[in-house]
């Protein structure tokens, strides 16, 4: 059995008891390379390294596709996430000692805005940082077109024009270390690669390199990664 099939089977077994008797859609899990999350100094990221009052960025499953890492401070999920076409899927929820650490792709499902070195318009609003748009904290919001997502509910759209939830990054917590395993929900990676072909070529030299799958990810504070964190 190859690794990919093994992962799928593990997932199905792990969630079978939970899904019995529920009308949830099937769990949507697309495996990619298993990638260890690292601190800036190259050591494995530990739960105590993640401050709930901050947001973090890492690149997964491709070296050019940004994700947000968040400690919501409390156990979250699993949650059924509904899509516009009437289907739904199961989001696993948080991982870590408290079940509070979650990750989502930081590419807005509306029109693909994502954090850049110069600025980030899509950000997490930690406790105490209230979004003017939705009047609450603990949201992920894209200020380009005012879409807001709920990280406690699998990245569901709270408000705005986004047609679908943020793509969830499936994490695991094993022996005190965090791993990214794959994605859950609808992906927009192909649209991203197509829309940003020129920009990705400038940053990575070629789209082939930009599309390389990663097996480890350095996790950075968003404030350190980007010059301007734009919240609205």
């Amino acid at each position, binding site marked *: 059995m190859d690794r990919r099939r093994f992962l799928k089977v593990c997932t199905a077994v792990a969630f079978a008891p939970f899904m019995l008797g529920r009308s949830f859609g099937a769990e949507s899990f697309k495996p990619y390379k298993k990638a260890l999350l690292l601190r800036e100094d190259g050591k494995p990221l530990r739960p105590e390294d993640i401050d709930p009052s901050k947001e973090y960025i890492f690149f997964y499953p491709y070296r050019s596709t940004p994700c947000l890492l968040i400690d919501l401070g409390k156990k979250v999920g699993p949650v059924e996430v509904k899509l516009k076409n009437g289907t739904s899927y199961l989001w696993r929820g948080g991982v870590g000692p408290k079940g509070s650490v979650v990750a989502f792709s930081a590419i807005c499902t509306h029109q693909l*805005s994502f954090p850049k070195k110069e600025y980030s318009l899509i950000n997490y609003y930690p406790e105490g940082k209230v979004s003017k748009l939705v009047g609450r904290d603990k949201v992920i919001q894209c200020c380009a077109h005012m879409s807001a997502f709920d990280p406690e509910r699998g990245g569901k759209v709270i408000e705005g*024009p986004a047609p679908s939830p943020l793509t969830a990054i499936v994490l695991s917590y094993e022996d005190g270390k965090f791993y990214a395993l794959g994605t859950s929900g609808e992906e927009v990676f192909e649209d991203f690669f197509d829309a940003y072909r020129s920009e990705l070529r400038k940053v990575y030299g070629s789209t082939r390199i930009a599309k390389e799958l990663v097996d480890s990810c350095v996790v950075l504070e968003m404030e350190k990664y980007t010059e*301007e964190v734009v919240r609205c």
Partner: protein
Amino acid sequence: MGVSRRDLFKAVGAGAVVSLIGSPTFAKKAETLNLPKPSKGSPRVVIVGGGWSGSTLAKYIKKKDPKVDVVLIERRAMFMSCPVSNLWLVDLVPLEFLIHSHLKPASKYGYHFVNAMVHDIDREKRFVYTNLGKIHYDYLVLATGIDYDYSQWVGTDPRDVEIAMTKYPAAFKPGNEHIRLKQKIHDFEGGNFVITVPPGLDYRCIPGPYERATMVAWFFKKNKVPGKVILIDPHNDPPVKAEGFHKAWNEYVKGYIEYLPNAQIKEVDFGRKRIVTNVGDVKFDDLNLYPRCKSAPIVFKAGLVKKGDRWPALRWPWYQTVEDERILCTGDARNQPFSKSGNTANSEAHIVAEFVVNLIRGKEMPYRPPRTLCYSGVDKEKAVWVDLTYKYDPKKNEFAFHNVKMDNTPSKKNWIAYLEWAKGLYRDMFS
């Protein structure tokens, strides 16, 4: 009795009109444009106008149902954005920011892009006539934007209208007008540079003239031009983002702008370079004359506008015309009292694409209003925004603004969001 050149034109024109009504001779001669369909029985939607509404519609109809044949007809060879153009006028974004090609989305999503001019519509036989040939439709969407109505301020003498259009272009229809206006701003050496705001709210880009006046004043200040912008406004205050604009006028460009609210224009005297208003005459050294707006000529020609109106009568809350259920008017061509803006047209087109596909399938869908998110620059790297949607009351058959939010504090963060807002919308239409 001699026949003057003008009379001759009148006679020829009258004859042409008669022949169109009585016997459409040109129609018989026009060849059908050969546009292959996905399959022989594919229904066809023809969209006239490749602006914010039409471009979005073409893509999303194909995304929702690839079996529908979609033809996008646009007379311009490329897309140029009116949103953000005020920043280009004063060199704060390059031209490449505004211009985009229809070819990538046409090939990626599989719609036909026809670079042609529509000159007539045969509603009975459902043909659109272009300079390249005729095209049959099952449904026709007129996303034809706006035209200018000079009758209120300039009159109807074609010589005066021509002066207005060529010497003092409004520059809210991208292309020639914007390029000319940019030249005029950059060549301005001093005095009064007058900008006008149309009356009412049914003009393209409600905050557009205010943003333009502010940014031109910023440009004069930066380049130490011994002159000022005079903004003639029939409203008592900017209808949106007033606080943000006043902050700019009182702080960032003070001395370079003069705001004249409640100023009703009675006459534009090109010869003496003055505008006669109820609050006094205004002398101008140069002028950006933005008059009242109306539908594009083809909407009138198709018989979709009632006598005395400027916009087509539509079956609210949707977009089918009262005269012909096979024809829809969207974007700035609609008559719903939505903000005539790029973002409104784009968000509306996402909904209309679904509506049209349902229409073809004989299905109904619940009404959803569009959304308007609109940024305006008020200084270099400072912007403000308003975000709202609309609410339809079926009992009263009325629309109202709904869920209005705004940030009137000029900031660099809003400026960054402004540019990314535009890039995102361009991505939506052209990538």
